[in-house]
């Protein structure tokens, strides 16, 4: 099977290790991974901040780049939700504004083929044990767009539970938002920081070494709060845990 990796602009620029981990993991599971070099951004930040018309060309570009692939895999719950939930909505809005079906038709092919990483592993590849080894205590934060947007359910937890050496600890208040919310973090800094602080305190109370999530944007906010508070915990993307094996530990 050959899939396209949609890494997302944030990961590409700031978290290349996550991208390398996805490649390593999928390759190990016998999937051929391609990274279309023309990819950029799904348009989520524009859309959610109120710049829908600026997001449209980005969505069209996404479709142009990825339409031909059998499956598109992304290690980001929120960018996955953007494509799956909001691209169809953008098409509908364009139609409601009397601009015809063009946008909807352009975006339609990529919508059902776009998978968040854990979804792809469990639903498409049908695996929960990916052969990983990770000798740490881990607590899992289900980010809002993964939880409510995509309905990832217990998929990430099942994957983590199958990792050898890993001890999973339940996170109190797991369903509560960490307070990132894209531009919300900058527009409402007080509330955002208060939410981040509570998330970190809850995570600390588990005594785990690692806080894991399937979205680096949320981890950037949580991790930034952790370093500011000098906590011992580290934020780690789930792909980096799943890619890790005894023979080949991650760099």
């Amino acid at each position, binding site marked *: 099977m050959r899939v396209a990796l949609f890494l997302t602009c944030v990961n590409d620029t700031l*978290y290349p290790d996550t991208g390398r981990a996805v490649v390593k993991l999928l390759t190990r599971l016998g999937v051929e991974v391609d990274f279309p070099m023309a990819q950029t951004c799904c348009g989520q930040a524009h859309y959610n901040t*109120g710049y829908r018309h600026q997001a449209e060309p980005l969505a069209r570009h996404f479709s142009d780049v990825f339409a031909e692939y059998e499956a598109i895999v992304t290690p980001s719950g929120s960018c996955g939700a953007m494509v799956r939930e909001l691209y169809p909505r953008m098409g509908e809005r364009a139609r409601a504004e009397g601009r015809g079906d063009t946008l909807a038709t352009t975006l339609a092919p990529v919508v059902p083929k776009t998978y968040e990483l854990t979804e792809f592993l469990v639903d498409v590849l049908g695996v929960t044990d990916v052969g990983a080894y990770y000798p740490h205590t881990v607590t899992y934060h289900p980010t*809002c767009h993964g939880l409510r947007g995509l309905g990832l359910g217990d998929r990430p937890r099942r994957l983590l539970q199958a990792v050898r050496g890993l001890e999973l600890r339940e996170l109190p208040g797991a369903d509560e938002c960490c307070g990132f919310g894209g531009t919300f973090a900058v527009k409402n800094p*007080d509330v955002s920081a208060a939410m981040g602080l509570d998330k970190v305190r809850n995570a600390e109370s588990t005594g785990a070494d690692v806080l894991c999530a399937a979205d680096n944007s949320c981890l950037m906010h949580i991790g930034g709060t952790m370093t500011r508070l000098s906590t011992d915990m580290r934020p780690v993307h789930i792909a980096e845990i799943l890619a890790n094996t005894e023979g080949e530990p991650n760099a």
Partner: protein
Amino acid sequence: MSGTFVGMPAFPEAAHEAVNNPTLRANLRHATHTIRAKRAVAVSELDDWAALREAGKQIKDHTLRHLDRYLVQLEESVTAAGGVVHWAADADEANRIVVELVRATGESEVVKVKSMATQEIGLNEALEAAGIHAYETDLAELIVQLGKDRPSHILVPAIHRNRGEIRDIFTREMSEWGRPAPEGLTDTPAELAEAARLHLREKFLRAKVGVSGANFMVAETGTMMVVESEGNGRMCLTLPETLISVVGIEKTVPTWRDLEVFLQTLPRSSTAERMNPYTSMWTGTTDSDTADGPRTFHLVLIDNGRTDTLADEVGRQALRCIRCSACLNVCPVYERAGGHAYGSVYPGPIGAILSPQLRGTQSEIDASLPYASSLCGACYEVCPVAIDIPEVLVHLRERIAEGGPVTREGNKAVLKPAKGHAAERAAMRAARWAFGHPGALRTGQRLASRTRRFHPRTLPGPGRAWSDTRDLPAVPAEPFRDWWQRTQGGKDVPK
């Protein structure tokens, strides 16, 4: 905390105070987490919750689509039952009508059933200005009124107060309004409730005029319905000779039968009860001396921005709201910012989409409300009429950031983008341009990587909002796409 909502600063500044007030934070956290957990249990008892939610949504959507027809039917039914219907286009008109109706009775006091609509139009203040005292009879509403405070929650307007604060307010203020608080009042719930009961009983027995809202109005019969937990509302509805109900037009349902859905979803969503302790219904007037209920009944139907909201395809779903307040109790932003920061009687997620629609987005506070959310989606998940609040928030952000068509007072207009978004718009355009030109994006990434040793972990200017409380991630030595090109996804280099 006294005063009106007019001239409120934007949400982030208004929230600043609450976020840094540990007592308020603790009061709110405790209250919302308790009710949220209870609600989850109450809802999980019904295995047809999803179907009820869908039914509630459908009934409301159907009614809103044909609201003109159902309102005419409602007027006919109310009139046939002996009531008088008045139409008010805005808050001023509604207040004028009510003041005149009270004056016509010759009374200078009214007792009130808790009502969001009368708070929305500022009726108490308008009555006061006309020399008429309005006494709130709902316990939480009484606390707010005595404390010269503002409500901060739809269902529990005094949620931001703890017991000690309430005792102090009662001791200090009750004598100004009627029967004073008992000597040596403590802060136990039973004593506080008893003090309020004694204070209010005087008012009930004296009052000739009652003012209420309504949770629902049944078009086919002209029946009004109020659901409540304390029974004080029922006293106001049955004892006075004249009853004036002030209700938003969107509270209409077509038939009696439709109530079966909402009488299940509303109490479970709001107070986590299986059924409302008191469900009062009245249809027009009673003309016998022995029967309970008003001899004269007036219904004041208020628009106040509702038909304009109805004209907006995406935003109109906000009018489905049955004011259960479940969205407030799960909202992480409400929990930290408190209800007052929303600058309206409708706080929390529903307030963030309702106020800027009813009032327009011109004021600073109304332009900031659509951004008072991290779009986490918890509000949509709990809403018993499935209002997609995040969808409407983003829609309203668009109106503020890019401008667009709106209906104001029945006229179509095209709004210009709001002021103060120029820098953001430019940044969005620049980012969009870079994302449209992968070569440019790559150059930027490389530049960031090469200069990475010079990147500060904290930022100057607007970026400080981020870096005051959080560190930025370090820029990696090589963006992913460069690594991919150099190694073809790791194939070219030994691992």
